[in-house]
């Protein structure tokens, strides 16, 4: 079995997506709270609190600088945690995947459905956050509306990253390693709360090569500030290409783990 064999899929993947959506909607009140509250907390603490000591950063006010980063971080977190801890619980504790593959669905379709759901969660969260942040007048419209479709693509990237870790983790607590060694550094060093240009040049290159959030932040920030550049296309191509690669890899890794 190859690690990069393209999975055979049918429209049945949406049945898995639908299952997760139904569960999500059962507790929608608590699910809609974080994307609503999170930007408020960060904006007050960092944007309007700490930000008082910062006049301008890269030509904009500090709240306007971090607003897009908050959206990008939420896109990352919602998909990543859905497809690590969420998927692991469904796979290992609830045996949901086992139950589904006893039906005409294949394991490839189950995993793809999970990833599409992870991406959808990013889209839902990004949309809610966008609304809250727009209410503060921190983003440019209508450019910022492009963030909504983009959050699905970026969400799919983080969902695939998460699923790769889920496929290889020996147990649920080991999922804390990628969380602390990969997600938390990305949260801080991807041009989120301070410009990437402050970091030494090799680290900047590293960030663009290996930290997906860097590209996502840079795209989202260009859209909220309406400052489009050619580099945007490079970042977008990077996100699409890596998403695709990790999508195929994660499905194959999962297949290896579950089909013996």
């Amino acid at each position, binding site marked *: 079995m190859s690690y990069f064999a393209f999975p055979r899929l049918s429209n*049945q993947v949406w*049945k898995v997506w639908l299952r997760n959506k*139904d569960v999500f909607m059962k507790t929608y009140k608590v699910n809609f709270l974080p994307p609503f509250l999170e930007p408020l907390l960060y904006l007050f603490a960092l944007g309007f609190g700490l930000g008082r000591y910062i006049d301008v950063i890269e030509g904009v006010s500090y709240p306007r600088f971090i607003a897009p980063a908050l959206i990008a971080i939420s896109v990352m977190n919602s998909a990543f945690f859905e497809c690590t801890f969420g998927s692991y619980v469904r796979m290992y504790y*609830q*045996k949901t995947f086992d*139950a589904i593959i*006893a039906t005409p*669905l*294949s394991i490839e379709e189950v995993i793809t459905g999970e990833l599409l759901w992870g991406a959808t969660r990013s889209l839902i969260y990004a949309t809610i956050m966008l609304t809250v942040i727009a209410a503060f007048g921190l983003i440019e419209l209508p450019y910022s509306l492009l963030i909504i479709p983009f959050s699905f693509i970026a969400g799919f990237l983080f969902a695939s990253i998460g699923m790769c870790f889920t496929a290889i983790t020996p147990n649920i607590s080991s999922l804390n390693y990628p969380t602390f060694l990969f997600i938390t550094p990305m949260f801080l060093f991807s041009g989120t709360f301070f410009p990437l240009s402050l970091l030494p040049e090799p680290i900047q290159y590293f960030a663009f090569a290996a930290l997906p959030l860097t590209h996502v932040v840079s795209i989202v920030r260009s859209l909220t500030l309406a400052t489009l550049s050619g580099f945007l296309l490079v970042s977008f191509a990077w996100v699409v290409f890596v998403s695709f690669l990790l999508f195929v890899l994660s499905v194959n890794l999962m297949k290896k783990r579950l*089909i013996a």
Partner: protein
Amino acid sequence: MVVTSKFKAGYFILFHISIQWWFVIVSVIMAEDLEKQFGEFVAVDSVSFTVEEGEVFGFLGPNGAGKTTTMKMIQCVSPKTGGKLEVFGMDVSTHQREIKKRLGVVPQENNLDPDFTVYENLMVYSRYFDIPRAKAEPIIDELLNFVQLREKKDTVIEQLSGGMKRRLILARALINTPRLLILDEPTIGLDPQARHLIWDKLKSLQSQGITIVLTTHYLEEAARLCDRLVIMDYGKILVEGKPDALVEEYVGTDIVEAENNPKVIACLEKSAASYDVVGNTIQVYTTNPQELTYALLQECELGHITARSATLEDVFLKLTGKKLRE
């Protein structure tokens, strides 16, 4: 007039034969030298068997005998590593989706969806089989009646008893009106009441013509339910047959149990009787318990002696040994 009726009769016979032919030729499951290896370990070692339409077929064997692995290959979730395996005449390696569409599965472990209620579990499952909602609703109502869970419709899974969970899993396995039902230890961990209820349900399914394949550790269950069964050990099929016939062939109709001491053994050795030593007792296999009891009491100095009917459990232990399997 005469010509047409003759033609009709001929056509009818031809039609009838073709149906019979189909029943005879296409077994529901056909395995030939089926093999499953996990690395070096051979879990299923070149087994051959067939399961015919409408029968209840059992797989017995100690832990690690290869029963569940065989079930998983039939369900198309674990690929075979050798031999041939066809379900409904289709190859399991190439027709997974078509086979799984016609299959109902009760797994060993409860894997109901804890995020949903009883009713939602069945509804969500019906979607995986592409059953439209309007069609699924009456089916679900009927199934909830069948497994006697109508009142629990809106209960979350967590609050169901073990027996209820098993019954719900059975209902879930029937959502696509399968022609073949696979049950991996359907009554594991259930109390006698719950177990009898499941047995009743399985009997009624059998009378509807559904083919049933099951594995079990409860030999009484196998003897009651199975038309035919195999006993597996170390990945191989040791014997195959009807439960009664197997008992008669391998242990006789009855068993006389006597206290284990060297004198009795010496005495039995002389009489050329077939016996086994089980801990503190000696089991003598026989078809004539009265005569044997009499003879043993006369010739050998026996203390305590009991005669009882032989069961499938005796066959099982005789063939697979008494050593504990972990």
